[in-house]
């Protein structure tokens, strides 16, 4: 295949259309290379966000033939038909061409209080065993490309950004709630603010994650189970009441200053 046809969305929130370009190919070429070729040779005004071109910064997220993907990780060879359609992330507000405004994710993220160390560990370096950090290390691989947020049908199709934090933030919540040094009781916030109950386990977030984080199996489902322990399990509730299961000794969520969990809407 010497040439590839790239169909790119060009436009603004008010109007837009698909423009078609032909670009030459070379071994190892990725979709982002084709977009760069168009920018440099055919259409200098084409807007696209990118940074590392090594699948580590999470900037070049877009939808390639309808699949949420990193453009820098989408090889041209994956599309033998020689025709590739590139459109912006559907879930987020469009800025121009392939650029969307993903700031909502950062605003939601800022609502999640950072790690609150246990009183005896505060201010000192953590002395931790490998078995305690292994599970949460997987979540640290997240590059915040927001492909999982884009593909999540609760945000994408149902527009429930008012009620559900999205898979990326579930990963962040899981990494904190499972952290052996964290001393904040986050259950109520995970259930009510994060809206973990909205997730219906369709696993699309796991399918699109370029870092292969098992978002559903290792973050969302364990959080759902923790919420079930606390709110939906009558036997555990009874055992807690009569003192056989100890109540959490973690610091109440309300004890975190309000300004840390308040987000100002963009509108």
């Amino acid at each position, binding site marked *: 295949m010497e040439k590839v046809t790239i169909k790119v969305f060009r436009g603004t929130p008010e109007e837009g259309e698909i423009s078609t370009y032909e670009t030459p190919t070379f071994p190892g070429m990725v979709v982002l290379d084709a977009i760069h070729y168009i920018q440099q040779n055919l259409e200098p005004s084409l807007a696209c966000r990118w940074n590392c071109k090594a699948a580590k910064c999470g900037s070049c997220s877009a939808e390639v033939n309808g699949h949420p993907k990193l453009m820098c990780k989408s090889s041209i060879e994956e599309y033998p038909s020689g025709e590739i359609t590139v459109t912006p992330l559907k879930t*987020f507000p469009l800025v121009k061409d392939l650029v969307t405004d993903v700031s909502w994710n950062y605003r939601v993220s800022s609502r999640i209080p950072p790690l609150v160390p246990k009183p005896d560990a505060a201010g000192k370096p953590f002395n931790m065993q490998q078995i305690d950090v292994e599970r949460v290390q997987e979540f640290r691989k997240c590059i915040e490309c927001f492909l999982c947020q884009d593909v999540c049908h609760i945000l994408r199709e149902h527009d429930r950004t008012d009620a559900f934090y999205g898979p990326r933030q579930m990963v962040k919540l899981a990494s904190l709630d499972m952290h052996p040094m964290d001393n904040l009781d986050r259950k109520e916030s995970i259930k009510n603010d994060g809206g973990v109950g909205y997730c219906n386990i369709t696993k699309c977030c796991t399918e699109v994650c370029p870092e292969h984080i098992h978002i559903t199996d290792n973050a969302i489902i364990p959080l759902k189970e923790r919420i079930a322990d606390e709110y*939906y399990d009558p036997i555990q509730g009874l055992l807690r009441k009569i003192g056989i299961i100890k109540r959490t000794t973690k610091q109440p969520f309300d004890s975190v200053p309000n300004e840390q969990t308040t987000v100002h809407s963009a509108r």
Partner: protein
Amino acid sequence: MALHTQQTPHSKRPTIAEGERKDNWLMAPLTFFLVFGFFVVWATFRTFNNDHFFIEKYNYLSPFYSPLITLPESWKIMVLGRSLHISPSLLILPFPLTFRLSCYYYRKALYRSFLADPLACAVKEPKALDTMRYRKYTGERLFPLIAVNFHRYAFFAAAIFMIFLWKDAFEACTVPATGGGIKFGFGLGTLLFFVNVSLLTAYTFSCHSWRHFVGGKVDCYSCSALSKTRYGLWQKISFLNEKHGTWAMMSLISVLVTDIYVFLVSSGVLTDLRFFN
């Protein structure tokens, strides 16, 4: 619920029809729909059939009727205007069925194939369904879907059934001896029983709720000898859990095949292929 920040509604964006998925995304949900649909139809038929579930000659008991229960003759129900004996299967199947329906893997598959919510990843949900079923999407927070939070109880019930199914598999290795007693015997049916119960065990004990119960709820694994043991068990279950969906589908098919085999041999359509005795 605290309202958190909303972003610009989707309606403010131009529609890009050409950006939709063009691959064969319907294949996976359609396949599950057909396989699971067939399972439901066959299981319903077998439940009310209440016959051809036990072959005394080879000690083959259909998994739909395990454990073997004999109900009093007087227990009857009306089905389509006919008075029928209550099938023991009616008392057995609700337990494994509840386990499957509330299972995290089946939830994904059922939401996709039967509720189109969503049909596939990054695929537009059907507008007609959208209008029909939504006031507003509520996920698994309200009745009836909130009941899936009881999956852990369904797991423990299903785990008890594993004891009976293993017992059935070992009993299928025996045949009545001439002059009384039992002797070793092994046929194709016995092989199916062992494959079936092995797949069911892998499926049941790779359950997410079980994984959580064993060690997932622990935050500090190094804090005590017990939590270290739980970590070891949690790792082993996590290994099995990675293929939970595969076990789920393979065990569904194996239950189906085993029951159909028992039905066909019992009704005389097939003869059991015997390897020993």
